[in-house]
């Protein structure tokens, strides 16, 4: 019996998210007395792979098959299912990322397993298996029970502290026995965001709304983001207006993020916006309207003009 986790890499490197997954799985494994197996697909050095061991993975299965770079849903699902069967996995854990959300439902059908996505904490109980997730776009939390023998979850980023442990993992090449027919996706173009902090990865996010007045006004926010190694985000009208790229739009219909610190400049705090950011640990709001609903969700607030406040923030950070 084991717990299988699917670890994603970015150009051969793992990110904090992968270590969160391993730490989380290791905590459940301890309670169940089982092993943690990590499956990694992609061209990754053994040195990088062994880092998964530092957080509690007992065994690392590595697949270095070029064909998987097309991120074909069916092929990856087949590979994960094959690993789960061979390792007798009773729990399969994915990140609640684009890829995790694409693959997990397919694997759940293959393994006849119940699936819960967006899990935010350790299971409430193992038997019966009950996990917590947000529902109604963050407006409530649900306890969900999975009734099948094999359980699948996708785990939300930033929901579990990484814990380093004394542990050595073995690394094994794994042949998932996929055939060419499993691959049907032909990628013709890939645009990777480089040189910038990925929004979904960022510990700190600087966000602007319609109160910023124009796309030309973003210099201060970009400077703040630079100084804090923060990601940049915006409300929906801002990306609709073309002031900022669509990839930066957060909220119910944009990206859902959960950084440690979220700055909202000139954002009113509409319910659909909050749906994407309310899991942030600390929210700072700057708005000239004292009645703006954002202040109900914020931890720190300033009723004032963004143009006056942003330079002071920049100065304050320089003084830290």
């Amino acid at each position: 019996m084991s717990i299988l986790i699917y670890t994603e890499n970015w150009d051969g490197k793992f990110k904090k998210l992968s270590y969160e997954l391993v730490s989380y799985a290791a905590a459940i494994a301890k309670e169940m007395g089982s092993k943690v197996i990590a499956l990694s697909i992609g061209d990754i050095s053994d040195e990088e792979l062994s880092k998964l061991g530092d957080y509690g993975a007992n065994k690392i299965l590595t697949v270095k098959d070029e064909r998987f770079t097309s991120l074909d849903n069916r092929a990856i699902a087949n590979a994960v299912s094959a690993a789960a069967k061979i390792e007798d996995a009773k729990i399969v854990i994915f990140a609640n990322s684009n890829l995790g959300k694409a693959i997990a439902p397919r694997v759940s059908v293959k393994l006849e397993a119940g699936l819960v996505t967006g899990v935010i904490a350790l299971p409430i109980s193992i038997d019966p298996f009950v996990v917590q997730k947000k529902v109604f776009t963050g407006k409530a939390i649900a306890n969900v029970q999975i009734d099948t023998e094999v359980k699948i979850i996708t785990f939300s980023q930033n929901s579990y502290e990484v814990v380093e442990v004394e542990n050595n993992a073995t690394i094994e090449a794994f042949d998932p026995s996929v055939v060419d027919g499993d691959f049907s996706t032909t990628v013709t173009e890939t645009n990777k965001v480089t040189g910038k902090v990925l929004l979904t990865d960022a510990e700190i996010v600087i966000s602007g709304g319609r109160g910023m007045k124009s796309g030309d006004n973003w210099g201060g926010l970009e400077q703040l983001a630079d100084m804090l190694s923060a990601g940049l985000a915006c409300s929906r009208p801002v990306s609709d207006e073309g002031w900022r790229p669509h990839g930066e739009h957060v909220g119910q219909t944009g990206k859902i993020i959960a950084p440690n610190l979220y700055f909202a400049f000139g954002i009113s705090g509409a319910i659909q916006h909050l749906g994407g950011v309310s899991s942030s640990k600390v929210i700072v709001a700057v708005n000239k309207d004292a009645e703006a609903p954002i202040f109900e969700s914020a931890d720190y607030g300033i009723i004032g003009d963004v143009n006056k406040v942003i330079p002071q923030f920049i100065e304050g950070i320089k003084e830290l």
Partner: protein
Amino acid sequence: MKILVLISNVPDTTTKIRFTGDNTSFDDAGVQWIINPWDELALTRAMELKEAGGIEKITVANVGEKATEPTLRKALAVGADDAIRIDAPAKDAFYVASQLAEIAVGYDLILAGIEASDYNGNAVGGMLAEILDYNSVSAVSGINIEGDKFIVNREIDGGSQVLNITGPLVAIVQKGIAKEPRIPAMRGIMMARKKPLNVANPIEANERTQFVNFELPPPKAACKMIDEENAKEIIKLLHEEAKVL
């Protein structure tokens, strides 16, 4: 070519969320129901593709009890040609996907939303694809048809891709798939009354998950307010008090 758009019936996004029966079920008293925002955009894109030519028909489908019919009628008013309601409560994602698999065969393109805004399941589209052994692409932000191929834009973690893939395809759509949702015009509403809304009986299928109960998030402590002139003070508090800087 035929397109099937999966429609989830969800509470309006501004609904105040409450629970009843010892927090075991959602309190739907007074709730306004809408087409799940993603499904509305999916339907809009389906309409655009049809207007560009080559699409024979657009069907919308929902697994739900009679109360969801107004939502399907709205989808017909937006422009779908016919609707199917599978007469069963939407018990869980696998149950719903199993029902949809019964009626989805024969469509070349199936559009599902990335998640329903009520229980945020993120599951039905992918499960349906696997049950039918169809191709699937998730986080789709654009779709075009070229001959027998679909040209799909999708968001990946840390970027985006353009790919091509053959049908039958389940495309799980998100932001970008269409710009603005279409709202039904008066003529559309009149015509929708005459369009077929077929009711199908459910098949036997298992549910694999169940909601035990719900909680509302704990109330947030009051926001600490700082004067505009002392804005710098916040940076200090974030550093010393909240310890996030």
